């Protein structure tokens, strides 16, 4: 995994803390608490086991171990772990959904500029475990 992110620090929203509102900036964010509103980061967002996000989320990489309700857009990769749950549509250049993960919604793939890797669009719906892998376009 590339560790180069535009942000050098990782912000943390811990378990018993909630944010209602908008969050933005070139930062990485780790959510273990509750977040409602809108998130727009040029870094990565990591939603941990106890994290609950009810928001539209836009970030470079998105990793979901907790729960997300809202539309999600990852400029690079979206990753949903076995404990993760996404209810909402996703848009990503690459998606990785582990077995056991819950995903209810539509999926759209972003074509990375300049590359034409893989199928240009990909659509899934329904719930239950799904596994999808797409080579990282690089």
């Amino acid at each position: 995994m590339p560790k180069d992110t535009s942000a050098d620090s990782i912000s943390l929203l811990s378990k018993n803390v909630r944010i209602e509102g908008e969050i933005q900036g070139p930062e990485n964010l780790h959510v273990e608490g509750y977040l409602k509103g809108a998130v727009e980061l040029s870094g990565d967002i990591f939603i941990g086991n106890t994290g609950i996000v009810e928001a539209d989320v836009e970030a470079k990489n998105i990793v979901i171990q907790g729960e997300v309700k809202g539309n999600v857009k990852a400029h690079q990769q979206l990753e949903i772990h076995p404990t993760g749950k996404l209810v909402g549509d996703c848009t990503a250049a690459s998606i990785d959904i582990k077995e056991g993960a819950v995903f209810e919604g539509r999926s759209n793939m972003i074509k990375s500029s300049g590359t034409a890797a893989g199928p240009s669009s990909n659509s899934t719906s329904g719930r239950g475990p799904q596994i999808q892998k797409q080579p990282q376009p690089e």
Partner: protein
Amino acid sequence: MPLFGKKKKETKAERPQVAVSQNETSYFGKNLMIKGRVSGNGNVIILGGLDGEFNLRGRVKVAQSAKIKGEVKADVISVNGSVKGSLAAKDRIHLDQTARIEGQITTPKLSISEGASFDGEISMNDRSSKPTGTHKTDSALDPLSTTAPIKKIDDR
């Protein structure tokens, strides 16, 4: 007798994850801009921007690079950055050298370091504070409690 097959964890190695214990201090980095309301239990260190409100049971540290516009309510607040708005602590507030405050402070205990700038007013009647054991003069005798008029004094 050692069992073989302890390779579960291998798949996790692909992404460096910061192990975070559940009750750690929340940390809002300097590039993070929050608009809205932050509430709950726990400690927070903020280095970035907040336009809105902190309402926390715990400590809030406003670091030097932080810029806050709005309201900060917590048990303990320590400020190194700039705050425009109000600060209200249940326990205490400390303004460090680099603090820049414009607004109102409400706290039972306050300390200000040399170099801090503070433009505004302070109120130190801690009505909002939890009972700390010491017997306080309460609302009836509180000169600032406007809601309890001093009319009802029995004339002896």
